[in-house]
């Protein structure tokens, strides 16, 4: 189990158990859970709580890990809140191999930097993409649509236009 000292808060949300830990303790907490039989990382993602000052979500980025024990069928959600620009958190891809791509996706979409990740590059967006699409201050429809009659305009880089 997670050592009690690492747990900041715990509770149940709509039937799902969750615990909150300090971001710097995520690797230790997940290692503890893995030893306890939670060997499947179902998914890993991030939630952007931009401009929300409620006590429920104390920092802008919430990194969420959903773990499952295939023997007891138990599930637990581990969450860690991080701020800063760029936000940093330890990678868990050494504990759970599927986290490799999930962390790359979270980096690609939210700009969360996973320290000690073997290959932290964009996975869904092109390598030269600017910005992190799933952040809440990234506008929907903010991308210019490229029409062939304007090709001279969109072939010029925006900073040189």
């Amino acid at each position: 189990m997670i050592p009690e000292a690492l747990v900041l808060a715990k509770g149940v949300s709509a039937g799902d158990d969750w615990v909150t830990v300090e971001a710097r303790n995520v690797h230790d907490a997940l290692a503890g859970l893995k030893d306890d039989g939670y060997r499947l990382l179902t998914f890993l993602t991030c939630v952007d709580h931009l401009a929300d000052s409620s006590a429920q979500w104390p920092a802008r980025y919430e990194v969420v890990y959903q773990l499952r024990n295939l023997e007891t069928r138990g599930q637990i959600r581990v969450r860690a809140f991080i701020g800063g620009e760029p936000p940093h958190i330890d990678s868990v891809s050494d504990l759970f191999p599927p986290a490799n791509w999930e962390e790359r996706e979270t980096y690609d979409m939210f700009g969360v930097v996973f320290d000690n990740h073997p290959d932290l590059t964009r996975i869904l967006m092109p390598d030269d993409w600017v910005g992190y699409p799933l952040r809440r201050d990234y506008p929907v429809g903010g991308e210019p649509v490229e029409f062939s009659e304007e090709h001279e305009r969109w072939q010029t880089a925006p900073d040189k236009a």
Partner: protein
Amino acid sequence: MTDTVAQGVTITKTGETGAFGGELLTVNFGPHHPSTHGVLRLIVDLDGEQVKRLKPVIGYLHTGIEKQMEALRWQQGVTVTDRHDYLSPPINNLAYALAVERLMGVEVPPRANALRVIMSELTRLSSHLVWMGTSGLELGAMSMLMYCFRERDTILDMNEEISGFRMHTSYIRPGGVTADATPRFLDMLDDFTHKMPGNIDEYEALLTHNPIWRQRTIGIGRLSAEDAKVLGATGPMLRGSGVAWDLRRAMPYSGYEDYDFEIATSDLCDCYGRYLVRIKEMREAVKILRQALDRLPDGPVNVDDRKMLPPPREELETSMEAVIHHFKLFTEGYSVPPGDVYVAVESGRGENGCYIVSDGTHKPRRVKFRSASFVNLQALEQMALNHMVADMIAIIGTADTVLGDCDR
């Protein structure tokens, strides 16, 4: 480092020496290769014809579905969930609908649950049929595609009958289903459940003992049970490695605990094992359909909650309250209590889940789709190492990834 470009394939010499004294070459496959089931790109290091390293490159079908969900009201999001795993729309709807219902504390009526099970199993069948048809095509059994698409078309006809759409049905929505099953739909389903076992016998006659099919799949793409678990594989990938894990049995939803069916597993751990698992799953799906049809309960197919689902059309002409409810639902939508929830369902490919964070407003704060294809694809390198290039095609085929699901 010299690049040779022939027929669209770029080859780069790596400078490393292989086991047979030759040089390792880096070869790019795809993204627009017909055997990659969508637009998957693979960067492969080859020693002669043997795969020594393999790196999948994804993202070519990224459509920003999770971003779009944040801009849509709760009831509008259903239409977007159809479109990530485009071979199993009702199962995606179901994951989303169950997640929203759990946050709202809503239980759907028994008839809605039975119809949800029927649509899920029909979808599983149609998804496996597309898989079998295209995999057969790739591995030299070309007539499979004709046989499989014949039955798939029957399923699409049923989709059309019950929901009005052939593929992106949006049939299952939070609070119930869009419409009750018509008598014609039930007749079609009855007919289908009688004919389908014979059709599956036909597929087996074409493939199970087909020497070419067996040579192309037996012993190819081995994934041990331990590796499958470590790599997070789910669905037929995990069950094809002998692990009896099925969310319909392990964590039942929509009343699956009341149906009598077996979990299909195979200890072969190879491409042929995964094929046997899917054949068995198709037979079990027909069994579940038969049971659901035989004891389809009567009653409503939606929750009786005017704050969540619009009133019937006829009430609008006589009731002021109904007009207000209608207006509020279609301008503002409903709000979901704050909190987060994760619900997983078993799709044809494995665990397709939906993680929702609500901040109590009429739009979700975050919707994350856990897609089986995305996780299963990471096991590709493990399965394809030291196999021939042609075997890699068999391995991609039996992994059954849908790239729309993978990239979302």
